[in-house]
């Protein structure tokens, strides 16, 4: 018969060890008197140890001990605040400010890039509008041309025409020799004809978008 080791019997006596070792030792202990006596001795020693630990040592005042421990913890926290970042502060609000500042800087960058790349007349117009809004007198030169990017305005005795993106708007006089054409830098071309029969004057114009 093979007996379990003493350490295994000690674990069994305390209710420790794995499920299978405990089943194997319990089976052995039922048959073996010597091992059963060993287990009983271990259990008796454990009971006496628990009994001795449950009693408060003489001369120890637990209430006083608890107050001292609380005091020591507070002193430790205060000392930690003096020498370092303790308790750890929440960093999230600081992070929010950083994001806001970054977005603001990016917005400024975009506005600056937009204004730098804006054609001069448009930027002057924006500046004039802003000055008018704040009630200041506009001092910039006046530019009154209207805009239709890519458009060409043409005036000739043959026709007046506005061309833009594959579309065209034109006036074609019946008799080019009797027409008077002109261009206005504000963005229009005109053709003037006099009706031979009625003498009525008709002035046709084509405009940039206004």
């Amino acid at each position, binding site marked *: 018969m093979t007996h379990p080791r003493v350490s295994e019997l000690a674990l069994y006596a305390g209710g420790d060890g794995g499920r299978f070792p405990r089943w194997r030792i319990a089976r052995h202990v039922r048959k073996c008197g010597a091992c059963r006596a060993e287990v009983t001795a271990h259990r008796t020693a454990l009971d006496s140890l628990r009994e001795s630990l449950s009693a408060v040592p003489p001369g120890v005042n637990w209430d006083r001990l608890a107050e001292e421990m609380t005091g020591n913890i507070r002193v430790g926290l205060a000392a930690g605040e003096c020498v370092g970042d303790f308790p750890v502060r929440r960093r999230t609000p600081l992070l929010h400010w950083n994001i806001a500042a970054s977005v603001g800087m990016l917005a400024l960058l975009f506005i600056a890039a937009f204004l730098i790349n804006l054609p001069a007349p448009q930027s002057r117009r924006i500046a004039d509008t802003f000055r008018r809004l704040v009630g200041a007198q506009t001092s910039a*030169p006046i530019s009154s041309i209207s805009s239709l990017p890519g458009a060409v305005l043409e005036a000739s005795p043959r026709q007046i025409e506005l061309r833009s993106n594959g579309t065209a708007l034109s006036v074609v006089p019946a008799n080019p020799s009797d027409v008077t054409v002109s261009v206005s830098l504000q963005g229009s071309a005109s053709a003037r004809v006099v009706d031979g029969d009625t003498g009525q004057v008709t002035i046709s114009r084509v405009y940039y978008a206004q």
Partner: protein
Amino acid sequence: MRSKLFAAAVGVLLLPGVAVQAGVLPRIDFPPDSPVAVLSSDPTGTAESPRGGAVMVDLHDALTLRNSGQRRICGVTLMVIAQDISAGGKASVTVPSLNVAPGEAFPVRVDLRLLRPVQTANGVVQITLDGILFDDLTFYGPDRLGSRHALTVYELEARRDRKYFRNLLEAGGPERLKREMLTAMARAADRSGVAVQMVRGPSTNYEAEHELQFSFVQLPDAPVEPDEGRVRVAANEARGPRLSIRNRSDRAVRSVEIGWIVQDRQGREFLAESLPADLNLAPGQRREITQDATLRFPREIAVAGMTGYVSSVEFTDGHVWIPSRAALADPRLEKALAPSPEQDRLMQIYRRKGLNALVEELKRF
């Protein structure tokens, strides 16, 4: 019964719109309180035709309008909007030098050509009223195209020129009037029209450019004085004109229009453009006008000089100033300036109907 059927059949055949595609017919839309009413609209000749990858719309509308107000009409401007077809472009038809009494009718012809890509959906062309000028120089209309100023200038020029020719008639009789008409017609025949293109922004012509100073025709009675002007010139192009203007009158000026005469290296002169600007110029104040535009003339015209003159001024109280006939007698202006619409009309009457018809016409106003 048979005659009714025949009349209906003839009516259908004579309907002007039958041969015209309904999609291209203009929509006439006058305000309900308009002092002119549309008596008839004849779009005969309006048609669509394919042109390569595009569609060309020839738009014609012979309108008959009636003065339904209480005052005489001196001029009218109709606005034509073809938003979907012409990439935001607008057109207008102005008839100045009218003398239409209340209840009378008068014709206005709209003739436009629109070119649009095939893919573009059929856009509606709308004809609406932009403004009417009455004989007391009051104005009716939305004035989206600056018609009030233009019609007022035309009417003041018409009154000035009729007065000038009436004075000639009274002082020297029909012979004096005839001589003046013949001189004016000869001058008009000598004047050559020139094609010009205007594009906004910088030019694509990379020839070396130089700055050219404007010279000005000083008109002693003009309320504003242009004292300095520059333009950048490269071969047949003139770019970014800048003018400095001072208000020498005792009234605030709302807008100024500067006429612009171009001289080429052969000494020929062309009245090319006008440079209008909204200024809001207080008495004594000076301002600079600039335009971010490039003017391109035919290749054979090498720009060698620029002459400017004040062609009209509008004060903030609505009054308009135009140059007198005496001021326009300056040789530089006389040579290059086109006659006013009214003088054009009077010359046409003389050419077509003779001196007596012209004398009668001058007495009519």
